[in-house]
């Protein structure tokens, strides 16, 4: 797994994948999808797919792949090695969603929620496998949201595929277990060796697991707050854990689509409207100035 492309610029997403085994081009395949790092307030979220010919799922199971959460980091690394050794019939692909992408997508003007983001990423990975010649026949997906809706969405996109969306799919289907291992290994490696693109020469790297309930993570978020910028891009600003700290301890920042501020502003402009009426009966500025937001300055 070569993570150098992502490490060169972890502000943006990164796609990486194994070579497609010849067997997967000629035989119908099962494809599993899982994600790693959905919950943490730190670091990327990694989407993984893993596939092998339907007939060889037994061989995959024999590698003793299991739900990544039930394994230690060392076991996952070991299993990832084994998947690499089985490259004649097992292929994988990963989509690393940078924390900056997650923050900016979820906080976009037109909000992009995490479920939609997850679904679109999964769809993108399936499509990518199809495009690279994998004979995908069956798709198995682990889900945290409502399974039926997700399944419906996937079937709409891929009417020719047999789609199974199930909670805990990562412990039920070996291809999903394998996908979860690939995703988790990538996420762990990236988080462990996070290269801050900010110029934080004395960066405190003791941030724990990144889960909001990890005391180390909490401590790190409290200690590493910049009053103006908040955090480096390593932090998901869209997580309530981060937002609560920013709201209480950082300098307030308001955007034209900040909701409570807009309400406050309306009240304010109404007040200033009346105030203005009293003091002056100003003519409106000519449109040349109005269109350029150029206003008269009354004092320095």
């Amino acid at each position, binding site marked *: 797994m070569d993570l150098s492309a992502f490490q060169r610029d972890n502000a943006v997403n990164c796609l990486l994948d194994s070579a497609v085994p010849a067997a997967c081009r000629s035989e119908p395949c099962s494809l599993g999808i899982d994600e790693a790092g959905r919950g943490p307030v730190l670091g990327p979220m990694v989407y993984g797919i893993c596939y092998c010919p339907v007939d060889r799922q037994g061989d995959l199971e024999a590698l003793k792949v299991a739900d990544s959460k039930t394994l230690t980091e060392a076991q996952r690394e070991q299993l990832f090695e084994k998947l690499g050794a089985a490259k004649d019939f097992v292929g994988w692909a990963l989509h690393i969603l940078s924390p900056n992408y997650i923050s900016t997508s979820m906080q976009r003007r037109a909000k992009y929620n995490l479920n939609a983001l997850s679904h679109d990423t999964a769809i993108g990975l399936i499509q990518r496998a199809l495009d690279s010649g994998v004979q995908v026949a069956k798709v198995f997906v682990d889900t945290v949201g409502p399974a039926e809706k997700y399944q419906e969405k996937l079937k709409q996109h891929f009417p020719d595929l047999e789609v199974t969306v199930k909670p805990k799919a990562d412990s039920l289907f070996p291809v999903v277990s394998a996908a979860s291992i690939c995703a988790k290994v990538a996420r762990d490696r990236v988080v462990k060796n996070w290269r801050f693109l900010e110029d934080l020469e004395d960066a405190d790297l003791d941030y724990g697991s990144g889960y909001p309930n990890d005391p180390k993570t909490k401590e790190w978020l409290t200690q590493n707050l910049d009053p*103006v910028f908040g955090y480096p891009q390593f932090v998901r600003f869209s997580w309530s854990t981060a937002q609560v700290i920013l709201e209480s301890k950082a*300098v*307030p920042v*308001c*955007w*034209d689509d900040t909701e409570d501020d807009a309400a406050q*502003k309306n009240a*304010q*402009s109404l007040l*200033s*409207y009346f105030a*203005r*009426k009293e003091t*002056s*009966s*100003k*003519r*409106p*500025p*000519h*449109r*040349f*100035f*109005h*269109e*350029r*937001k*150029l*206003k*008269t*300055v*009354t*004092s*320095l």
Partner: protein
Amino acid sequence: MPAGRQRLLEASAGNGGSGGQWVIVAPESATNLPKKPGSEPLFTKLRNPSTGQAALYLFGSDGCQVFEVKAFHEEYRSWFIGEAVQHDGRLLFATPVDPLFLLLFYLTKAEKEGKFQPLDQFLVDEEFSSCAMLLNCKNVLQSVHHLVDEKEIGGRKFYKYSEEKALKWLKKKVDQTVKVLKDNDIPVGGKVQSATFISGKRNTDTTEEDYIRYAHGLMTEYISEELSTALAQYLRLPQIASPPAEPASKKRKLSDAPVEAEEDYTKFNTSDLKSKKANSKMSAAQKALAKVDKSGMKTMSSFFSSKTKTTK
């Protein structure tokens, strides 16, 4: 901490306030070193000649030039300046303004008395004492004749405002402005046509009248409402029929509202003319108008048409 934060928020509530720091774009010539000691550039308040209300101006070194100060001001803007943040996200512009406009305000005000006075007596304004500096501006004394009738008694010069002259001068300003608008491809027709603007092509629907009307509107920012009305007549700007739904007088009221309204202000400019009743001031304008011969109008239109041909 909470108390400090509260203070911060209040101070910045309007976002127009300033924490003692300003970002400004100014002509290089505004920072020329002064010839006389103690006459470095001066930011001071003067009467905006259009409204009569306080506005910020900048006198260049030795008071030779005067600049008006306007600000690009958008609600949600702040600056990073080097290694600092400034909540006031305005970008100030100091741009040259003809001191005659500022002088004109005082000349027209004194006209009611109708007597010849020395120039400095026009500029007695306790609230805005800096206005006396206008007389030091380069060429003001040589060019004030554009606006006044002169008399010399005992070696002293006395002046009296002449609307006829002022209108003539303003018309030249309008002509000049039309040229500038064309040269800079400023869209003047109807609404902003951003597509036209981006491609750099002039909207073929734009008429000479649109340009004159627009230039007149710009000029109105520098002269009183009465004079603006007189100038429109002098320029023979036809009145535009305002939307039938609302009488012009109502429209005028609306224009007192804060400028957030998404409106085409050319309508307001023209409705100004409509709602304006002919008053005593107008007779002077009409007199002036009567003196304008048709050849003058011809010159203007030929100027425009030749201009249109030469620009791509």
